């Protein structure tokens, strides 16, 4: 079951926020390894929402999932896009969500950014690009332009 418990002294929300910041620190220090995955059905149950990206990692004895949900909500001036960030604890069975939490959270957004940078190995790829030599036009499928004989 979920390790996050409520107590009268410290509301659940505060504990979740502390956990998010802890995960962010550990990720930025390279102590958590995230991988991209398909979001479980329980998270994508609202069909019009866009869940992207969804990352999973193992931390302690738990499997954790994080995601960004973009949804079209009805606002006073018609439908508007809104952004929410989520955190869940995954069960042992595939697609099983034991507990989940969602809110607009800058810390969780930064955690998603850190996980994305880690999974696409952004620093390594940028270093490679900085070291790379310019490739010829032919190698990317662009040939030398042909000049029509009709032209003056």
């Amino acid at each position, binding site marked *: 079951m979920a390790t996050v418990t409520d107590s009268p002294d410290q509301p659940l929300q505060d504990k979740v926020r502390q956990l*998010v*910041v802890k995960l*962010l*620190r550990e990720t*930025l220090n390279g102590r958590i390894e995230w991988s991209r995955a398909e979001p479980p059905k329980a998270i994508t149950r609202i069909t019009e929402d866009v869940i992207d990206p969804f990352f999973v990692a193992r931390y302690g004895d738990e499997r954790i999932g994080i995601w960004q949900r973009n949804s079209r909500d009805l*606002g006073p001036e018609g439908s508007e896009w*809104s952004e929410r960030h989520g955190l869940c604890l995954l069960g042992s069975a595939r697609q099983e969500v034991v507990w989940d939490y969602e809110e607009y*959270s*800058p*810390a969780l957004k930064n955690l998603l950014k850190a996980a994305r940078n880690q999974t696409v190995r952004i620093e390594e790829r940028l270093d490679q690009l900085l070291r790379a030599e310019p490739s010829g036009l032919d190698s990317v499928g662009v040939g030398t332009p042909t000049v029509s004989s009709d032209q003056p």
Partner: protein
Amino acid sequence: MLPGWANDIAAVSSILGLGVTLWLLWEARKLRTACLRRARLPQLYKALKDAIAVLDDPLVQWDIDRKPALYRFQQVSAHLDGLLPKLDPKLREKARALQDQLRGHGVWRFWMPHSPRKRLDERSAEDVWRLYCELSAFVTSLNNSLEDSSWQQ
């Protein structure tokens, strides 16, 4: 010559009319204050959100180099200053508490050298990450408040 009862009705009506006019003026003033208070709130909120979004990387370096994080915290503090007069009392209280943490005790240190409160640059990494957590929670509350108020307009 009007009868006495007609004079009475006219007097009561004029008093009621004056009352209604004063009430309308009061409501218009309240509306104007609310509009002025909320003007630029979305822009200031976005600026604060953007400033907090770039805090995490400098905070990782806190034990090595504090300057980049302190610079970001100063920006956050400036945006909070701009937001303060536009917030409702509950959020204003939270923003003031955050400002106190961001500024440390400053001049009070001179009067209370043994005060347990530390300046921001004297805080540990644990402390500044806790502050980051509180700033993030404040932005969440502000976001919820803005979403609620968009329905009230």
